């Protein structure tokens, strides 16, 4: 088990009802964290257009996560 702090933004924050939460989970990659939170909060958003960052660095869904990491989940962006 790893303890991961997950931060949610925009639509993800509204789905989760919190901006941030510590989670204990079995996760090897950022994708595992995304899927865990999707199931936990009932979001149907696929990860295809979403982005992820780990400890304030942009990451890929295959990037490994470590105990104590902060994972930032970004729903599809729409700047401009």
């Amino acid at each position: 088990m790893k303890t991961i702090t997950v931060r949610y933004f925009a639509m993800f924050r509204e789905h989760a009802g919190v901006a941030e939460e510590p989670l204990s989970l079995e996760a090897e990659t950022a994708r595992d964290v995304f899927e865990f939170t999707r199931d936990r909060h009932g979001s149907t958003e696929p990860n295809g257009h979403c982005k992820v960052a780990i400890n304030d660095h942009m990451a890929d869904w295959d990037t490994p996560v470590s105990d104590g990491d902060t994972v930032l989940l970004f729903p599809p962006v729409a700047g401009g």
Partner: protein
Amino acid sequence: MIEVTETPIDTSALQRSLANHAAGGYCAFEGWVRNENEGQVVERLEYEAYEPLVIAEGEKVLAEAKERFPYLEARCVHRVGLLELGECAVWIGVASAHRDEAFKACRYMIDEIKVRLPIWKKEHYANGDSGWVNCERCAAHGIAD
């Protein structure tokens, strides 16, 4: 330089800040709040950004643009918070020796900013509904994943 601001964008001041006697051309792009999107009447927009990564990723975009289209000066400012119709949501300015680099760098920056920076836009509609752009719509249309 890229910035995020909660206050209205002063485009004239930004233009003046790019002054450079080696520049023979200047090109700017302004993104404005529009009153319609996909058939819905939009009353205002709400922007949210994760500033640390907007800055980090935005600086990469500006550097990439400079590599491809060598310019002299460039700045970008993105608004966050609640914006009314007609307000400027994003401003990009580029000054270069010749016009071609300014046009192309400006275009490159806005295109990349729209798809790469952690900025989100919520539309508030005349019928009282609201929705995050690209989210539910993306999933509903099956264009994500």
